[in-house]
Structures are given as C-alpha cells and as structure tokens.
C-alpha cells in the first residue's frame, strides 16, 4: 500500500495496540430494511472484516430518556465500526444523559479517548428532540455538542448526522454516514434503480423496469440521477429528478447512448454515443441535452468518461493502444495522455475528490480487481482480491470505495477503505446488486 494516510487533526498516541493489529473483526449486523411507502422490502446483511491502520478508541453510550436512545447509539456505533477507524469501548453499566458530569478519568481508564452520550425526549407533538455531546477524555473536556429535532422516521438520518459529527471531530475528515448510495437491484427479470442510505438501509425504488438499467451517476447536488435504460429497446441516457420522479431522455441518438458523467458544476453531461460508428465521448447540456459536442476522435473505443474534480479534463477508457487503458484529455480537444500502464486491461476510471488518486478495474490472472493509482508517483496497489470486482466509486470524502463484487455466484455490494485495509459486503438475500455509486455530501 502506497497511499498517503490522510492528515489527522489529532495525532496524539492512541491506545491502538499490537493486540488489535492482527485481530480480525467480524461483526454481523442482520437488519430488516425499514418499510416506508413504496420502499422495497429486502433483507440486508452486512459483513465487515479488517481494521484500520489507526483506530480511535471511542465509547458511545446509549442515549437516555426514551427507548429510541439505544437505537440511536446502535446506529452510531455501526457507522463508526464500518469505517474501520474506531475501536468501540463497552459502555455497559453506564447511564449518561446530556447533563451528566462526565468522569473523564474513569472513561480513560476504561480505554476510551472519547465518550459520546446524550438524551432523547419525545415531545408532546410526537416529534423527538435529540441532544448529543462528545467529550475528550485526554483533554478532560467537551469536544462537541448539538441538538436535533425530527420525526420518528428521521431518527435514523439524525443518528447518521451525529456519527458524521463524531467522525469529523475525531479524525478531522468530513463524515459520509448521512450520504446516500444508488445501485441497480436485479430480482428475477425485474431491474430496480434503488437509493439507500450509505449503510444500505431504507432503500427506495427510483425506477422499476423489465429491461436492464446500468451506469447510474449522481448529479453533484444529489437531486438527480443520470443512468442508462434499455426500456425503449436500446441504451438511452435519462436524467431522473429524485424529488419529483420526473425523468426524460437527454441522449437518444441513433445507436447506443451510455456512460453518463456529470461535470462538477452539474450543468454538463459527458456521454458515450455510437451515432458516428464506434463508441466516442461527447458532451451535452444536462438539463435539455442541447449543445452536443464531440470530445474524442479515435478509430476504436472511447468510453466511461469521468470529469476531473476541476472540471477541465476528462478521464476515460480507450483501446486505442490495442488494449483498454485509461487516458486523460482536455475538454477542447488536444492529444489524450495515457494514464494507466500496468497490465492489459484497465477500465472504469474514478478520480478521488482531491484529484490525486485514480481507481480502475484491472484484470489480473483472469480476475477483475479494484486498483488504486497514485497519479503523482505512479504507484499502484490492488484494493480488492475478488474474482469479479466492478464499478468502483469513491465516498465523497475519499476515504471509502464502494464496488460490486460476486460472492457465491451472486452480485453483492462491497466496500473497502481507500487504503485497502477494511472491507465490508452488503448482500440482499433475494437479488443481485449491481453498479453501485456513492452520492455526494448531503446538502
């Protein structure tokens, strides 16, 4: 592994010990997806393995005041655990509320560098008020404190928001627990484009079709998804507004229309069309499909465009060298620059939010793996070791990678930390999950 560790605001020595280094954490969280109106029923299973290079010891006490308090704490614990960056210290026997005077030394003795606690109150109108606190047992003082209010339905989202605050206060990096993911669930002959919380919970169906749906892509503001649907008998690119469920084709030319990618400002889509022969990259207006412009000109395949974070260039897959490799090109023409050189098959480029790391799917000894390429040094590492790992996508903070894997002959959703150390899989008992993509920070 050659990836740089992100800088931590808190660099004091953690109680992470060798005793944990070789320890394989395998936690199994079996949960039933919440069922709201129009929500898919699916039984999800999450498996986690591995530990982060650095683990922060943190205690999350059950919130007091209402039965919902233990559920809130459980969601926060599950979020922090999945990141692989936290070591959860037991809070058994503790009864803390938002006004408790924390015995910092006692929690320090228990092994916790941080203690989170709070109170939940059910208000007369049925809403909940949640007050949360985070304490630093080394500095013996408060780190964070905030109040939320919401309906019972919103408790899960609020719990993720508290987990995000804890994550950011401790690591210095913005959390992604309150973000959403999109993926295609295939059950029998039905394809569903689903939107779920980052932990796979609360899935909602955005589109149900008897024909394949591939390549979902989030708009930068998280309000729309572009994707490819085969419903008209061939691949056509649609833009779908998630709040109104209104959708319209934005690229429906002769031949194939596929591989949509949003520009960082959300105004432009890069797409792949075959209207002039083989697959080539074009740009068009994300709202109306107007101002079609051809970006690449090669005699073979150019596909899978993705914008650099500054919006000025595009990474894409091309087999102009004889095998599929990753290239980068400016939007106004110019000779594309080859980026990937290891092996004979590198596809599906995804750039990290800071623009420094490129993910690809690479074929090694007949297996498809997720590779991570440091663009400054050229150093490459394999993040996964599956047989058929596809469709990588970065979390908006760049710390996690979501991808599709095959286990037991079935497609599942998988995640790996960007340093490759912590892995998780999320499977649906009666379906295949494909083409996952991580949404932006919630706004």
């Amino acid at each position, binding site marked *: 592994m050659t990836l740089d560790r992100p800088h931590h605001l808190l660099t004091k020595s953690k109680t992470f010990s060798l005793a944990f280094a070789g320890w394989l954490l395998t936690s199994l969280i079996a949960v039933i997806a919440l069922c709201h109106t129009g929500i898919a029923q699916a039984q999800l299973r999450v498996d986690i393995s591995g530990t982060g290079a650095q683990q922060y010891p943190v205690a999350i006490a059950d919130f007091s005041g209402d039965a919902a308090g233990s559920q809130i704490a459980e969601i926060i614990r599950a979020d922090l655990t999945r990141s692989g960056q936290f070591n959860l210290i037991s809070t058994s026997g503790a009864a803390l509320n938002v006004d408790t005077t924390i015995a910092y030394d006692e929690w320090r003795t228990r092994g916790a560098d941080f203690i989170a606690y709070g109170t939940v109150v059910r208000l007369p109108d049925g809403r909940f008020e949640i007050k949360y606190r985070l304490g630093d047992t080394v500095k013996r003082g408060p780190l964070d404190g905030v109040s939320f209010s919401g309906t019972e339905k919103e408790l899960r989202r609020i719990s993720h928001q508290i987990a995000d605050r804890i994550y950011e206060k401790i690591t210095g990096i913005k959390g992604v627990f309150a973000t959403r993911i999109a993926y295609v669930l295939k059950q029998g002959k039905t394809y569903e484009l689903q939107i779920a919380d980052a932990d796979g919970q609360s899935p909602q169906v955005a589109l149900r079709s008897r024909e394949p749906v591939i390549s979902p892509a989030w708009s930068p503001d998280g309000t729309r998804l572009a994707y490819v649907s085969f419903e008209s008998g061939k691949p056509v690119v649609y833009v779908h507004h998630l709040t109104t469920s209104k959708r319209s084709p934005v690229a429906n030319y002769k031949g194939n229309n596929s591989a949509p990618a949003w520009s960082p400002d959300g105004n432009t889509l890069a797409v792949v069309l075959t209207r002039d022969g083989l697959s080539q990259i074009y740009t068009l207006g994300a709202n109306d499909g107007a101002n079609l412009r051809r970006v690449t000109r090669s005699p073979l*395949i150019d596909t899978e465009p993705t914008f650099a974070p500054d919006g000025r260039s595009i990474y894409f897959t091309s087999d102009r060298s004889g095998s599929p490799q990753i290239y980068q090109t400016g939007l106004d023409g110019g000779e594309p620059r080859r980026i990937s050189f290891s092996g004979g098959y590198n*596809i599906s480029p995804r750039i990290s939010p800071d623009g420094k790391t490129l993910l690809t799917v690479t074929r090694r000894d007949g297996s498809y793996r997720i590779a991570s390429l440091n663009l400054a040094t050229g150093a490459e590492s394999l993040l996964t070791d599956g047989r058929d790992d596809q469709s990588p996508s970065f979390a908006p903070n760049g710390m996690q990678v979501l991808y599709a894997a095959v286990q037991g002959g079935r497609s599942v959703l998988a995640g790996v930390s960007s340093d490759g150390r912590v892995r998780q899989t999320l499977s649906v008992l009666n379906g295949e999950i494909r083409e996952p993509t991580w949404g932006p920070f919630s706004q």
Partner: protein
Amino acid sequence: MSRIAKGLTIAVLAASLAACSSVSLDDKAGAGGADGSGILDPFNPQSILAKQRSVYFDFNSYSVSEQYRSLVETHGKYLASAPQQRVIIEGNTDARGGSEYNLALGQRRAEAVRRMLTLLGVSDTQVETISFGKEKPKALGSSDADYAENRRADFNYKR
C-alpha cells in the same frame, strides 16, 4: 448443433439459394407446409432470414469469421433488394468485464456486420447498430459454451 455444423448448414443453404434461387427447393412444398427456407422474408418463421440471424464471434474477436460470411451475405443481398426494409444489428458480449466497456465491445461486433452489409450494397439508412453488451445474455450460465453463445450479433428486422 455445434457451431461448425451450424455454419456448414448455413453455407450449404446459402449455396443452394445462390444456385437455384428461382426454383422450389424441395418436393415437400406441395404438402402445404413448405419448409420455406428459400423464402427471403424475415417475418416468415420458416425463412432462412428468420432462422439464421445470428453471427457468432470468437473470444476477444470483433470481426466476422469466415464461417458466417455467407449468412451475412444472404441478409445483405436481401436488404439490398428491399431498400425499404430496416434492420437493427444487436451486438452482445459474454459476461466477463465491465458493463460499459462490454457495451462498446458489443457495438464493435454489430459494426463489423454493418460494414459487411455496406459492402454488399445495403444503404446506411437501412441499418442501425446497437449493443446490449453483457446485459441481455441468451445463455445464463458461466460455462465456456454459455459465453460463446453470448458473443453474438443478431439481425433484428423492423416491421
């Protein structure tokens, strides 16, 4: 039927078509159930144009192999003689690799067939090439035979 046998059958049929295009192909025609393979009508299920409408490709190959040239020629001659008839060539790949890259590879297969049709005098306006990539496999397994069945371009005639 093995692929080679299939190819040979097509070659024989094509040769017989070329040799006696105006002659009834067999003596069972009078039995009311003409086997119809001599009828050049893509919408007649008995016609060779309906029965033989798939071109198979080798692994990692995107050109029409020798054994399918006569099949493409049969369709090409028909299309050239029926300039109003439209056809969609649908390219497919096996399940290995990424969705979008396979979509592009399926397109290469469809384009290889279209280029042959163009050389046979078929107008570009008659032909649309599309790809389903690996998304609509005919064979659902993951054996070599299943993969081979899915490396394919199909003629899909439009009414």
